[in-house]
């Protein structure tokens, strides 16, 4: 969704040609359309549920504990009688909030590090890239755990932890693109006319990286949803009573819930997988759409 919003404004500007064609290619991609078909209703439901769903995510009803799906509680209720559907929607809201904010932060860090590495000279470049290498040595989940142990639980720490983890790959892609761009005539010309670093980065660098950023953002949102769910599943991300898809799955670590009340964890699990799959379809569609060669096939 964010990705589409990000394409629209430039498409309306003077650079209409290639971006409009990319948009057309994207619309023609069947898998990407299927992705949008899932993601848009999920987004709408998650953002508007408090207007049309009668139950609040944290409303306790002791007369309806651990009830299965029924006409009133569509997806059943949990151990203290909270409505699972309401928690599922609130959980989706939190999961998407965490994912989108952390991706926004990591895009800023990733772009700046990549840009500074490519324009900042050999020493800066080498230092930044070795740092990136180092950040990529450890398996991401391990790094996530180390950072989580410092940051603690809650929404803001989780956003911070995930965004700190995800920028290195982006900064590499940005660096590679900008290194190539640096040698192009129009950039050399701008430099010759005395353009400063910020002019070079934001007038020339940023518009030429927009495809990388959009594709990265989309795929990384899916990834961030999984990271958040994983952390919360281990009890280190979003802390109860706030709902998230991960900490709803965490309930299933209790044998009783796992065995006897499967609706309490299977629905959030399904929501997680479908949303992530759909966002990945959209991301793949965007990647193909931005690749001009895909017209040739």
């Amino acid at each position: 969704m964010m990705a589409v919003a990000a394409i629209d404004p430039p498409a309306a500007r003077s650079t209409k040609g290639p971006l409009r064609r990319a948009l057309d290619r994207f619309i023609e991609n069947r898998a990407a359309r299927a992705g949008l078909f899932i993601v848009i209703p999920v987004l709408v439901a998650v953002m508007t549920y408090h207007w049309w769903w009668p139950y609040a995510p944290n409303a306790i009803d002791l007369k309806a504990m651990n009830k299965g799906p029924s006409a009133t509680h569509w997806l059943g209720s949990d151990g203290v009688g909270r409505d699972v559907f309401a928690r599922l929607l609130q959980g989706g809201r939190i999961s998407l909030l965490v994912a989108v904010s952390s991706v926004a932060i990591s895009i800023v860090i990733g772009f700046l590090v990549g840009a500074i590495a490519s324009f900042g000279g050999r020493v800066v470049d080498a230092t930044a890239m070795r740092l990136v290498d180092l950040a990529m040595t450890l398996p991401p989940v391990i790094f996530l755990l180390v950072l989580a142990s410092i940051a603690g639980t809650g929404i803001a720490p989780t956003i911070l932890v995930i965004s700190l983890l995800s920028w290195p790959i982006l900064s590499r892609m940005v660096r590679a693109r900008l290194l190539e761009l640096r040698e192009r005539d129009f950039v050399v010309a701008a430099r010759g006319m005395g353009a400063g670093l910020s002019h070079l980065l934001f007038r020339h660098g940023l518009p030429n990286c927009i495809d990388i950023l959009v594709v990265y953002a989309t795929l990384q949102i899916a990834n961030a949803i999984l990271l958040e769910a994983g952390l919360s599943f281990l009890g280190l991300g979003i802390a109860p009573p706030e709902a998230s898809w991960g900490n709803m799955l965490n309930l299933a670590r209790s044998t009783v819930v796992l065995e006897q009340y499967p609706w309490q964890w299977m629905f959030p699990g399904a929501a997680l997988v479908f949303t992530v799959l759909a966002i990945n379809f959209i991301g793949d569609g965007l990647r193909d759409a931005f690749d001009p060669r895909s017209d040739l096939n």
Partner: protein
Amino acid sequence: MLSFVVRRCATGLLMLVALSLLIFILLRLAPGDPIDAYINPSVPMSVSDLETLRDRLGLDQPLPLQYFGWLHAALSGDFGYSIQRSGVRVLPLVMERIGPTALLMGMGLAIAIVVGVAAGIYSAVRRNAWPDIAMSVLSFIGISSPAFLTALLGLYFFSVLLRWAPSGGMQTAGAPFSVTDVLAHLILPACLLSIGHAALIMRYMRASLLEVLNQDYVRTARAKGVPEFWVVIKHATRNALLPVITLIGSTVGIAIGGAIFLESVFNWPGMGLLLVNAVGTRDYPVIMGATLVIGACVILVNILTDLAYAFVDPRIRVA
């Protein structure tokens, strides 16, 4: 070849030192007093005692000096004490967890390699037949589902509903140690761990084999009258395996991530469970020790992968 080995090991060592520095800095940024790692929480201490200890441990020194002090101790195997388990040293705590994790991951990866390579070869040979399409769809699902969800679903279906496997732990409580008992506990988590990797290996194997099968020397082999089975197995698969070896090496890191979730769902007494519990209780010395050991393992596996690759593909050594 020797200089390649030496060079690769040297970079690996450097990476490890840099990693230890990074983690040291990160954990010093953490809230809380680092001196907690050195005192036994069940013994009360006065403020002046604490100051003496702080002085003796060098915690009042500047950070670089502290790092070298820590590194010196760590090199002689002293990672300090666990904060949560009073009086327990970190190193043995971490060491006793390596075995179970290695067992789980080794079994998981072995299953993934066998299944993935076999399925990949089959898919490539019978391209676009229905089993190929079915396996492609399955592998897509396998790659996209997170480890904690497959772990929960596997536990639910195979342990709870079908009762085919025990629901957790590494051995039956109270029973004497037996290999079959451990195997019975191992097989379900190992299979679940292998799903994502088998799917990934299958896709790489399929793509790589399809590319190789189009090459001239394969056509030559067929023209010479080599039976199709041997063309695929001996002539094509050997070369097609090259990119898959690199993939297997790089999935070990991901497998550690997956193992953490499987260990905590199945209560498997490995590194992952240790690390998750340590993070949950902010037991920084244990986090530090466990992370470093995992980091060292990942670096070692990467080196071994590179060496294996150089061994099977002579072009790498020359470059």
